[in-house]
């Protein structure tokens, strides 16, 4: 025993240690026992004169002694002490008597020295009435044991002389602890390890681990409780003798405490691996019960793998089996003490993950509302400031609630009631179930929020999902979460250069409608759309797309509607067979739901009847290249307004806010802006327009688009007028006055045109059959006149101030046309004195009829193109050679911009009228096959050489008394102007702010200072500055731009 000779300080330290931890209790045999028989151990104590000091020394000795040595003692000792025992009491040496009695007892309940296999526990349990430690059960009798036990227990009274006594139950507990640590834990880890490398079924492997661990523990516990049982029986006898109720209760208390100790021991010592195995087994079983098949299960079966999870039906064999198995396992775990706190945490985690998994797997992408619901829903979206009936929960929510109530909560109840078998109240109360449901709905909300972008894209077929969201987004926190996540999605999925503006706008419309359906207050939308608006402002074509969308022609609308109708029908047909696509519904639970939905729908019908719209107007068309949706919506608007007027009696335009009759009124949302005003309707157009910046920008763009269309085909402008009327309702008369004037100009032009024409005809003297002028604009029919056809000429007179800037392109028109212009001018000045006409030659249209050798070509083209082809007629000198002109010639002759000439030439070349014969030189292609063949069989002298007969119908709009400076060059006049302005900025900057600036700095300043934003990228700016450097206006010094000093 090396500790005996150890340094004194070591002793002291040990004493301190002992004073804290009662180590001597842990020893299976009392220290004093061997003193008489085994003096050879060299222990100084023993005998009557035992002292406290000796005891302490003994304690230290046994402390360091090996467990097995001490455990080995009992057999030897009990062997020899047995005959002595009866006489012990008479000896009167209390301490010795006590020690012997103690020894007797402890030897009897001592645990086996080692346990190498499960069997050792097993056999032990089988003959648990036998002595546990040895084969010599015969020498010991129950009577002796109980006698000794009595001595030990009643030591204070029976053996007053025994100064050193112990609590035998505590000793047993201690012994069990040591035994557990030394033998059972290795066994347990063996259970885990043995199967560690085994390939094969994942779940099965863990199941084996759990089961073997449980068996091991069960055996060990049987062993431990055997000892306790003996003690208890002994106590019972003693109590029987003294008939003390209190003692019995105390014994019971001891037993309970022991049990709890052991369970805590087991629970706390369970290894991570074991807990992991348990969790895997539990997760698997619970998953099966709750309808989420595990990966193992599905394995190679892709069909099953793609199936959505659904709660098992009542007669699902596998679920029943799993349930059975789970119950068994939980009971077993509880029995061996593994169902402690860690288990509960584990189980909670499993249920949590199962709930998430179920929600995600079962409902991701399931957005379809029941068809009956769709109707009420689309109606609801049209209600103004009226909440749709929120009780009409979507199938998803109903199914989820049902799942939680009937499966999730049930499982939870089953497990918890097994873990707490003696709990007085039910472990899962009704309010718990409600909590579960709200948790599940929260998860559904999170899922839907993450899907929201796709939901918006899928609008309106995603109404079911919106129903879910509306029902689940109940707190401001969730609303914030929604807006946050949606904004992020926007940034990553929409607002990047990869998306066309049309796509963005289309998505935006879908978003507006989706979020409106979700939240009529528009507050959510307001939170989201700022980034979208900012981004849209960078897209220059956004406004134009919106405007052209609004002006989409009725034909386009009809087309789109037709497409949608078919799509809708197909969709309906497809949706017919399975009324609900939610898995839960399609399985066993479904029976209740259809009726519920049906009833709810009936409830909400009164709302709908008024508001119902043709369904097809709610579907977004995706196939066209313009934003036809907008036209649909805009056309939709008036009916809606009317309906509202009918539904809510509007008393002379009373204040909207004071609509006392509105029974659907709700307060403004709390997260609304201060300036928040409840919108009256979905108002897609309004929202979109406001998103594009100010109304002014929009109206300006609208005016310029309308101007283009008015100058375009000479058709009627019904569509424009209608859109204009609708927009007027939105923006007011004043804002759209320009457009009014424009339309009026065009209409007046027709009148003026007629008047001037009649005057002319009177002058010319009834120009022979040319009087077919009933329709001044059409004029297509009169072309087949005689050779000297007099061109039919119409003009549109535009009021300069009211039309958007129209650039004037200078070129010389063919002489006959100039002639016409002249008399037209005269006529006009005669009609309206003190007004002048300025011709905008390039904006007209012409119908040109070309008589070529083998064919006659009639083309509608621009005046520029007509002028060019007319020039070829002039070139024909009747010499028999094909008319040939070069770009340079045309340039000199017509004073037209070269680019325009080139464009027009290629236009005619495409039509097959001209052919290119050299660099910038074109011939008339008199015959159709005269491609590049070089003039095979041409008869240029033929009458057709008069070829390009400049044909009537030229319309050349002009501005009254307009004076626009023409600007040539590759850039448009506007662009030139802009560049000049930018140059002013840059010059001012370099003159004043800083004499030399780097590119980035210039760019930054420009971005900050140019009022309507500076659209150039760094490269564009660099190019621009580079051109200025080339001009000698700037110089670059050290990477910084500097003005050249003059």
């Amino acid at each position, binding site marked *: 025993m090396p500790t005996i000779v150890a340094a004194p300080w070591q002793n002291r330290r040990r004493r301190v240690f002992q004073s804290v931890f009662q180590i001597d209790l842990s020893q299976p045999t009392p220290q004093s026992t061997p003193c008489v028989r085994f003096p050879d151990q060299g222990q100084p104590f023993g005998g009557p004169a035992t002292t406290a000091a000796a005891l302490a020394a003994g304690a230290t000795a046994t402390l360091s002694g090996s467990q097995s040595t001490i455990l080995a003692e009992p057999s030897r000792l009990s062997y020899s002490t047995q005959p002595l025992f009866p006489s012990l009491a008479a000896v009167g040496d209390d301490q010795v008597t006590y020690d012997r009695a103690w020894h007797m007892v402890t030897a009897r309940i001592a645990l086996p020295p080692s346990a190498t296999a499960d069997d050792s526990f097993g056999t032990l349990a089988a003959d648990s009435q036998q002595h546990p430690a040895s084969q010599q059960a015969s020498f010991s009798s129950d009577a002796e044991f109980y006698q000794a036990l009595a001595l030990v227990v009643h030591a204070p009274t029976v053996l007053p002389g025994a100064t050193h006594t112990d609590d035998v139950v505590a000793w047993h507990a201690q012994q069990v602890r040591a035994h557990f640590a030394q033998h059972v834990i290795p066994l347990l880890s063996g259970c885990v390890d043995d199967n560690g490398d085994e390939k094969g079924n994942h779940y099965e492997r863990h199941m084996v681990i759990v089961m073997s661990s449980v068996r091991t523990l069960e055996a060990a516990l049987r062993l431990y409780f055997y000892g306790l049982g003996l003690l208890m029986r002994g106590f019972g006898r003693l109590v029987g003798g003294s008939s003390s109720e209190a003692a019995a209760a105390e014994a019971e208390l001891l037993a309970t405490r022991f049990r709890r100790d052991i369970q805590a021991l087991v629970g706390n010592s369970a290894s991570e691996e074991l807990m992991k195995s348990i969790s895997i087994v539990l997760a698997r079983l619970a998953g099966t019960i709750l309808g989420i098949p595990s990966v193992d299960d599905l394995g190679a079966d892709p069909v099953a793998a793609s199936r959505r999870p659904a709660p098992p039906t009542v007669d699902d064999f596998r679920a029943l089996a799993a349930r059975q198995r789970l119950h068994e396992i939980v009971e077993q775990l509880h029995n061996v003490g593994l169902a402690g706190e860690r288990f509960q945490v584990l189980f909670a985690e499993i249920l949590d993950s199962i709930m998430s998994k179920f929600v995600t797997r079962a409902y991701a992408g399931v957005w379809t509302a029941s068809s009956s619901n769709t109707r009420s829903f689309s109606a609801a979206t049209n209600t103004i400031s009226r909440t749709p009936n929120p009780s009409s929960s979507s199938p998803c929510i109903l199914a989820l609630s049902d799942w939680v109530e009937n499966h999730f909560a049930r499982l939870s109840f089953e497990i918890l009631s097994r873990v707490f078998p003696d709990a007085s109240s039910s472990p899962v109360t009704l309010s718990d179930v409600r909590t579960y449901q709200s948790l599940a709905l929260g998860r559904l909300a999170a899922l839907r929020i993450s899907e929201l972008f796709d939901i918006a894209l899928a609008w309106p077929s995603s109404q079911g999902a919106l129903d879910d969201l509306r029902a689940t987004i109940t707190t401001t926190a969730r609303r914030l979460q929604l807006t946050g996540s949606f904004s992020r999605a926007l940034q990553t999925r929409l607002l990047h250069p990869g998306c066309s503006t049309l796509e963005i706008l289309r998505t935006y419309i879908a978003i507006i409608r989706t979020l409106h359906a979700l939240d009529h207050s528009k507050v959510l939308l307001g939170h989201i759309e700022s980034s979208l608006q900012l981004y849209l402002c960078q897209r220059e074509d956004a406004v134009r797309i919106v405007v052209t969308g609004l002006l989409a022609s009725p034909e386009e609308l009809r087309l789109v509607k037709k497409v949608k109708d078919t799509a809708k029908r197909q969709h309906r047909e497809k949706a017919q067979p399975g009324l609900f696509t939610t898995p839960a519904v399609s399985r066993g639970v479904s029976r209740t739901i259809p009726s519920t939905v049906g009833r709810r729908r009936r409830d909400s019908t009164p709302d709908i009847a008024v508001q119902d719209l043709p369904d097809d107007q709610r579907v977004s068309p995706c196939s066209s290249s313009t934003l036809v949706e907008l036209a649909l919506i805009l056309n939709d608007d008036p009916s809606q307004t009317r309906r509202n007027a009918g539904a809510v009696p509007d008393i002379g335009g009373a204040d909207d806010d004071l609509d006392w009759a509105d029974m659907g009124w709700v307060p403004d949302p709390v997260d609304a802006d201060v300036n928040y005003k409840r919108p009256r309707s979905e108002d897609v157009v309004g929202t979109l327009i406001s998103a594009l910046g100010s109304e002014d920008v929009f109206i300006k763009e609208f005016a310029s688009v309308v101007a283009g269309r008015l100058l375009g085909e000479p058709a009627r402008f019904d569509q424009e007028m209608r859109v204009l009327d609708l927009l007027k309702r939105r923006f007011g008369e004043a804002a759209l006055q320009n457009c009014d004037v424009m339309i009026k100009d065009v209409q007046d032009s027709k009148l003026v045109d007629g008047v001037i024409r009649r005057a002319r005809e009177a002058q010319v003297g009834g120009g022979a059959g040319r009087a077919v002028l009933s329709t001044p604009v059409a004029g297509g029919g009169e072309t087949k006149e005689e050779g000297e056809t007099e061109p039919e000429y119409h003009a549109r007179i535009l009021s300069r101030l009211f039309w958007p800037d129209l650039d004037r392109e200078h070129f010389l028109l063919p002489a006959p046309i100039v002639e016409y212009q002249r008399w037209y001018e005269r006529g006009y000045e005669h009609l309206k004195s003190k007004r002048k006409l300025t011709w905008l030659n390039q904006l007209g249209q012409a119908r040109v009829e070309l008589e070529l050798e083998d064919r006659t070509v009639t083309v509608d083209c621009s005046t520029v193109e007509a002028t060019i082809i007319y020039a070829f007629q002039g070139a024909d000198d009747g010499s028999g050679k094909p008319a040939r002109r070069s770009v340079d010639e045309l340039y000199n002759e017509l004073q037209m911009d070269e680019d325009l000439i080139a464009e027009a030439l290629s236009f005619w070349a495409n039509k097959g009228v001209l052919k290119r014969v050299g660099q910038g030189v074109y011939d008339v292609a008199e015959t159709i096959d005269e491609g590049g063949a070089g003039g095979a069989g041409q008869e240029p002298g033929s009458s057709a050489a008069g070829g390009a007969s400049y044909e009537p119908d030229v319309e050349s709009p002009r501005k009254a008394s307009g004076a626009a400076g023409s600007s040539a060059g590759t850039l448009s006049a506007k662009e030139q102007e802009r560049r000049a302005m930018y140059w002013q*900025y840059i010059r001012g900057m370099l003159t004043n702010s800083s004499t030399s600036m780097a590119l980035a700095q210039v760019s930054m300043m420009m971005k900050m*200072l140019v009022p309507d934003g500076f659209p150039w990228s760094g490269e564009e700016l660099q190019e621009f500055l580079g051109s200025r450097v080339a001009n000698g206006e700037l110089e670059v010094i050290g990477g910084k731009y500097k003005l050249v000093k003059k």
Partner: protein
Amino acid sequence: MSYSMEDNQNSAPGSVPATKLGGARKGTEPGLNASKRLQTELMQLMTSPAPGISAFPSADGNLLAWRATIEGPDDTPYAGLTFKLSFEFPSNYPYAPPTVLFRTPIYHPNVDFSGRICLDILKDKWTAAYNIQTVLLSLQSLLGEPNNASPLNGEAAELWDKDPALFKIKVMDRHKDIEEDE
């Protein structure tokens, strides 16, 4: 009909940033109007520049601090010279005049040696109808027609009438082109 929508909208406190944004949008923040006005003025200056004067915000991008340049008018002692000025705009501009200083040293009856200017429209005669361009034009004409009745530089006022030649010499002595980036 059920009213659970109400709960959606009222169950928790609103988001504060939104409220703040709303406040800012109203334009109550001082300096915002000034910046806007200055941006417009800059636009005007750039689109219709007057000869001999130019101005631009300072290089740090602060719209309330500008730099300007005036070329000395012909037929004055300042002909051919360039003068740099600095403008500091108050946040309630244009309801208060900017502070204008000559940064280029100048010998002038109404400008002191630290560049301060005595000009009524920059003091009590200021109205919101003035702008940078009018101020610069006034200063340019001041170079040709000093107000000798209330001089900051008495000697200059005296010499202006008595000895134009000496005045011119003094002007040339005093003038020194400054480097912008000092």
